[in-house]
């Protein structure tokens, strides 16, 4: 039985002179929930469409379970797609929508009925068979689209931002349900989204794409906490990207010495700590510690001033301007009974723990004068 393994080998697609997908290589093992994450126009949807067979690659291969899909039209590939707009046939009932693919395969009548009922039960839409798509809510329509694709028992299910048309609360609920569904059914899901939170929540692995290329592939935790490029760091949440210089590379027992600016030296233990010279350092907001300014000057503590606070409910986002000129955003949990009182204008000491401070050598900062340190 097909395991649903997807291989993309040097896959490229150009439309005229514009390159949408620029030679990507991906291996997706069977049964994995794999996300293609990136901003609009990064090529993730085009990649998905090439796997589905709606677009022919300009070069490179799409392989499903080892077989090269070149020349196989979409109607004959054992992959099916759930579109963002669901693309349910408005003139057919839910039952006939789900049965559509089965009928194309000339499945016997009784089997069609049985499998459609199974599929509807799987997506928890029992009793909806007679309804028309226009009578369903967005979430229900999405489930019909899922049932319609899953009833055919594809090796791989492709999902193109299926939750994009739904409101936030419904989306979160369906994210959980989709994940559970995938675990239950056990087939490969290739999921396209621009929402990093969604990708982090649901995926086994994520490929972060930008301008037609894959910048990093890894488990959610890896991609978030160990971004390999500035783009990935910035896309997956607040990154606090800072320009700095490594003055001494790391050695056994200690991390790299990084000059943040104006005589402020910190130690960084994560990332590319073996290079020297101009680099960028990254730290996640939740790892930044805010302390009383009396401690400034000791290890990895930089003096600064609170510029702005944003109350988020579960936490507070505090924007700090460091003495080095960098702007850093910290995320403080509202866990204590007493409000720590980080108000605008208050001096503060920023603790950047070495283990959380990550050096990125792959994207050195631009020439001085072009850009001031960014972050937050």
């Amino acid at each position, binding site marked *: 039985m097909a395991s649903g393994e997807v291989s993309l080998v040097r896959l490229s697609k150009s*439309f005229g002179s514009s390159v949408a997908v620029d030679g990507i290589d991906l291996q997706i093992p069977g049964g994995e929930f794999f996300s293609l994450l990136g901003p609009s126009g990064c090529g993730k949807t085009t990649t998905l*469409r090439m796997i589905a067979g*709606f*677009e*022919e690659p300009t070069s490179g291969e799409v392989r499903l379970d080892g077989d090269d899909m070149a020349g196989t039209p979409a109607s004959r590939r054992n992959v099916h797609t759930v579109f963002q707009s669901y693309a349910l046939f408005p003139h057919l009932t839910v039952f006939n929508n789900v049965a559509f693919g089965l009928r194309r395969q000339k499945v016997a009548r009784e089997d069609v009925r049985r499998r459609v009922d199974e599929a509807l039960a799987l997506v928890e839409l029992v009793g909806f068979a007679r309804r028309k798509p226009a009578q369903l809510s967005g979430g229900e329509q999405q489930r019909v689209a899922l049932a319609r694709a899953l009833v055919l028992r594809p090796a791989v299910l492709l999902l193109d931002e299926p939750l994009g048309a739904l409101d936030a609360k419904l989306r979160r609920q369906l994210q959980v349900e989709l994940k559970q569904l995938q675990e239950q059914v056990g087939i490969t899901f290739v999921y396209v989204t621009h929402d990093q939170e969604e990708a982090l929540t649901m995926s086994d692995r994520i490929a972060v794409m930008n301008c037609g290329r894959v910048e990093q592939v890894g488990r959610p935790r890896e991609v978030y906490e160990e971004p390999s490029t500035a783009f990935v760091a910035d896309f997956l949440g607040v990154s606090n990207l800072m320009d700095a210089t490594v003055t001494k590379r790391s050695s056994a027992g200690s991390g790299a010495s990084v000059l943040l600016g104006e005589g402020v030296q910190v130690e960084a233990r994560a990332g590319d700590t073996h290079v020297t010279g101009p680099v960028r350092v990254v730290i996640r907001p939740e790892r930044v510690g805010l302390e009383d300014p009396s401690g400034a000057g000791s290890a990895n503590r930089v003096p600064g001033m609170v510029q702005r606070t944003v109350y988020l409910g579960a936490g507070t986002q505090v924007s700090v301007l460091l003495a080095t000129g960098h702007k850093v955003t910290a995320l403080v949990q509202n866990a204590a009974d007493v409000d720590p009182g980080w108000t605008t204008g208050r001096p503060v000491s920023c603790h950047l723990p070495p283990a959380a401070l990550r050096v990125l050598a792959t994207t050195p900062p631009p020439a001085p004068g072009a850009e001031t340190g960014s972050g937050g």
Partner: protein
Amino acid sequence: MTTADQLVNEPDRRPRRRGLGRGVFVLPPLLLVLVLLVGPLVLIGLYSVGLRSNIPGTTTALDLGNWKDFLTSPTNPFRAQFVRSLMVTLLVSVVATVAAYPLAYFLSFTARKHRYTLLLLMLAPFFTSYLLRVIAWQVILNDQGVVNWLVQSLGLRQHDQPIPWLIYSWFAVGLVLFYSWIPFVALPIFAVLENMDRRLLEAAEDLGASRFTTFLRVTLPLSLPGVIAGFVFVLIPTTGEFITPLLVGGPSNQMFGNQIQSFFSDSPDWNYGSVLALTLVICVVALMLVFGRFLSTDLRQTGGGDRQ
């Protein structure tokens, strides 16, 4: 309905495919039109310059004599009739457009709630047989017809003294043409009025304009594209009109279309007839080229969507 312009200029949402694609499907209909419309027009052209003839045995050679005669001969009766025809057409078009405006205005502004039903009511006769309606007018207008009976019963005229200019006259021709096209003219005006931003009118009134002034200075100018579209709507088909003059016009009320018809039914001179037929086509095409822009672009600029 959309205009030809809109048919073409809508963005193509489908991803482009290589190869023949679905473009090939347009070939059979295109072929039909080329063979059965462009072909005949070409043939008419050839006939008009003597390159073909319907009389077997005649030598065929390029001969612009018929064209010269029609266009330049000082007392050419056909050219005179062509001009007369155009005058009638123009007059009818102007009158129809002016008369249609209040109808469109009524539907869009006064009869707000039921406007679509009333519009349908106004259009309904248009869907019945054109010939029948002209015959009906013949019955109404002729000497023993409804109008004369009414006038005579009211004592305004004696029996055996029917109103002479009522039938087989320019009045009859004009009236029936006007009758036939009015609903059609009202449509584009209605469409433009419908799409007009009512807040502009509110703003005018808010700034102190009376209802009449608002109409004159805001509504009317903004609806002009629709008015022109309606005018063109009636102008272009009416130039080739021949059924109405045939049925309710007298011998001296025949229009250019009738002339063409008689050349091809009664006389053997298809060459000369072709000159006339081609002239009509060129005239209409020229009108389209000049006025055609008003049919699509301006309607879109006022935010008006559909014509017709």
